[in-house]
């Protein structure tokens, strides 16, 4: 596992394993606090991160070129609007979560499928979301914003 910190940026390389997700959350919390990200925004990023990592770990079937996932945190503190972004990079087969059309969920407990909420949560908790496939890597970027003093 590698951690490097350069001003507003931090990176973590972690194995794509269930046991590493909690470690990623701990890293995110610490790195965000050091850079002045408020608790609510950290929680929102943490939810997105957990769901993004779960998608990679549970749904790629091990068909990835590298066993590792790279996390890149970028915190931009402006004069009014601030932004914290996480980019999750993996070498699994291309998958654009933004292109997925979410099916309507049943509102009856007996009929509802228990899964499939991860993408909904990423879309709900991020203020900005983007995806690109670049040089063999999926790169999912999600951001939260806040106004100073609120």
């Amino acid at each position, binding site marked *: 596992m590698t951690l490097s910190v350069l001003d507003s940026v931090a990176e973590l390389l972690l194995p794509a394993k*269930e*046991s590493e*997700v*909690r470690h990623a*959350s701990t890293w995110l919390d610490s790195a965000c606090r050091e850079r002045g990200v408020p608790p609510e925004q950290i*929680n929102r990023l*943490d*939810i997105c991160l*957990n*769901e993004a990592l*779960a998608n990679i*770990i549970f749904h790629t079937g091990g068909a990835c070129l590298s066993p590792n996932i790279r996390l890149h945190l970028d915190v931009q503190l402006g004069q009014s609007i601030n932004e914290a972004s996480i980019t999750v990079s993996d070498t699994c087969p291309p998958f654009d979560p933004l292109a997925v059309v979410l099916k309507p*969920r049943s*509102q*009856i*407990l*007996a009929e*509802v499928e*228990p*899964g499939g*909420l*991860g993408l*909904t*949560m990423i879309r*709900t908790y991020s203020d900005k979301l983007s995806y690109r496939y670049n040089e063999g890597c999926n790169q999912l970027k999600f951001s939260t914003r806040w106004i100073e003093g609120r």
Partner: protein
Amino acid sequence: MPIDFEDETDNLRRISISERLDIQGTEEIATKFAALTASANRRVVLDLTNVTFLASIGIRAVITNAKALQQRGGKMVLFVGNNQAVTKTLETTGIDVLIPMFADAAEAEKAALA
């Protein structure tokens, strides 16, 4: 273990979950959670007031056990108190529509027994 229970009456059980319901936290409670909701005709108040983080895998566990309970003639309701983060997650994912959710403990118990 961050899961505990108390039997209020013969058929009303309060299950309390605390800390993080992420992948690791959900795996830690999964077996006991399923066992605590396994009885027939059991009414359950699931206390989530001390959950500090709720990921979709935790929601999946709640739905799975609520469905299983319902299939055995039981019922689950959620008690969230003033836990705003968990409340928001349950509302934005529509879980509060599937499983009744309450901020008040007495209302939750009343609904569970209704």
